[in-house]
């Protein structure tokens, strides 16, 4: 019989509260990541009907914006993360985006990309997919790419990445319904993704292999062990502290849950 400890609640709710995101009942939490100036805010506005200010310059979204929409009767809270080129924590923005995806554990992360310079955007997609499986790629500004005679093979991209890819033009409201539906299906587990894993040089892969089993044991599936292993090798002190914090809370809440049942 499972008992639930009310004093500590659900660990995920805890983590989300840190980001000021309220999780109620079976609401879904969707994160919106992407390079700067790819139209994240435009997508955010189109999905939520909110009017966050948009602008054509990198770094527009300095505040983490939140909104919500309802799909198939289910409320989705959508969080507009700051635009970043990577998740390697070179700047405060990158730390915010990475921590949210890593510890906030959104039900789905949409990575918004610019169809006119996809290659630059792929780095971020690959890095997001290292942290979470639940990814939907949105190839935005597809109309602009067409105008510039750039062709993006959406189907091939989806096969390469192992996650759904949707072409959109947020400004012209093209592809948004498909995006929402796909996001919902991934969030609710109707679409299972199989993200492409980055294969590193032998030396690095070797180091990962050494660490992974120990980590798996410790992380108990809370975080992706390969990703954490990489960060350990990299010596990302900030993240290590954050992981300690996170695990401290999570594990103590599981501990609490188990203890309750032991007591009965």
């Amino acid at each position: 019989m499972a008992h639930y400890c009310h004093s500590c609640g659900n660990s995920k709710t805890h983590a989300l509260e840190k980001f000021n995101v309220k999780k109620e009942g079976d609401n879904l939490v969707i994160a919106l990541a992407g390079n700067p100036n790819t139209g994240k805010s435009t997508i955010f506005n189109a999905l939520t009907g909110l009017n966050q200010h948009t602008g054509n310059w990198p770094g527009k979204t300095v505040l983490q914006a939140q909104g919500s929409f309802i799909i198939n009767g289910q409320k989705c809270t959508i969080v507009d993360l700051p635009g970043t080129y990577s998740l390697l924590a070179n700047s405060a923005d990158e730390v915010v985006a990475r921590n949210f995806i890593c510890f906030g554990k959104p039900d789905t992360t949409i990575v918004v990309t610019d169809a006119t310079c996809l290659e630059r955007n792929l780095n971020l997609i690959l890095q997001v997919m290292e942290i979470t499986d639940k990814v939907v790629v949105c190839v935005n500004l597809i109309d602009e790419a067409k105008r510039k005679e750039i062709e993006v093979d959406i189907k091939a991209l989806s096969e390469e990445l192992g996650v759904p890819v949707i072409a959109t033009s947020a400004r012209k409201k093209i592809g948004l319904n498909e995006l929402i539906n796909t996001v919902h299906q991934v969030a609710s587990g109707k679409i299972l993704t199989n993200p492409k894993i980055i294969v590193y040089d032998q030396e690095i892969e070797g180091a990962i292999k050494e660490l992974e089993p120990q980590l798996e044991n410790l992380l108990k599936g809370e975080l992706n062990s390969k990703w954490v292993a990489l960060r350990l090798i990299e010596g990302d002190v900030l993240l290590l502290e954050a992981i300690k914090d996170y695990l401290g809370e999570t594990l103590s809440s599981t501990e609490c849950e188990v203890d309750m049942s032991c007591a009965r």
Partner: protein
Amino acid sequence: MCSIKTSNINELFDQIASKTGDKYKDSLRDKLVDNIYRQAETIAKKVVKEPKNKIDWDGKIDNLLTSKITGYPIMLLILGLVFWITIEGANYPTDALYNLLFSGEEQLTRFFLFLGAPDWLHGVVVLGVYRGLAWVIAVMLPPMAIFFPLFTLLEDSGYLPRVAFNLDRFFRKAGAHGKQSLTMSMGFGCNAAGVIACRIIESPRERLIAILTNNFVPCNGRFPTLIALSSIFIGGALVAPYSNISALFAVIGMILVGIVVTLLVSWGLSKTLLKGVPSSFTLELPPYRKPQIGQVIVRSIFDRTIFVLMRAVKVAAPAGAIVWILANVYVGDLSLLGHFANFLDPFARIIGLDGIILTAFILGLPANEIVLPIMIMGYLAEGAMLELDSLAALQKLLVDNGWTLMTALSVMLFSLLHYPCTTTLLTVKKETQSMKWTVLAGLIPLTVSVVVLFVLNQGLKLFGID
């Protein structure tokens, strides 16, 4: 076993940390990045097809907009065009609003007479609150409603990052971050927004410089004051069509002074309090995009114009009442406002202002929008009742109270350089988490403005120009 001790993780982390030296970490990170990029490239090659010999229009436009020879003139030209449209376009609606709002005042007065309301009530409500509101709306609304959509167009089209690119060199020489020109541009809308925008600057040192100097670009609370005073005193000295052109040059001049002061203070800070070398960064020039006209108008009118106006109105209403009371409660043969203004007057005169002007700036701390209205109310309370239904009437009021071209110039400079409003200061507090920097964010501009006005006014006196 019910639980796992988290200390195990600490141990594991420590073990690994001790194994990997810093040098090893750096090369490892490069390898990681390199691996990721290579795979991105491989995928992109498979799925993206680009035209072979396309004309790179963005590149061609960029060559024009960011070259050393054509970049700056075009920048000034665009800036000039925006302000010219604002000044030219704001004239007529401003006068129309004055007429409308002041005929409203007459109606209200009649209504109060009809009710037999006491004089003080009429004074506080009509001459204080209503008049304060009317001035704020008439002075602010038209320029904002024109300026904001134009500015948003520049933002949407992708021109702002080009400005940042052009100015990068100057900011670097000043020991500041190139992205500061972006945060500076945001300050044109609102300094509080500009201060928040400073988050895009990663280095804490350069971020602080950007925060402390954001005040030197006029926010929309101060813009209308600059525009009104330029139109009256600098444009007014000449006949149309030269009047608007000269007013335009005055406004652009003020902006350039603001930018130069920004650079000088940034330089000063990077040599004293915030020593260091500018960090390098890559500024991405986004593709040009056709702005969405409808979006731009809705965004700029609702998000900015109405928002800012409401904020001003919220401050102007109580401020109007307070100023009226201060101007009508007498101690001896002088009102409280008069006493206060008299007390400040000797000092104010040294820097080319007068007691009422300085009082207005002090009472206007919560929002710069209400500085000009407070000045007007201060003058009106002392002198005879005037029918203030146009810019011409405003000019008469100011001239009657001893304003000269030098006074107008001093007020404009003080408005441009003095301390930011309380909202901005609170934002600085929130962003820096430090009382020291918040106080400095107020004190540095105040010192700069007093020094500039002192040197200007006393210098001119020395040469016999007054």
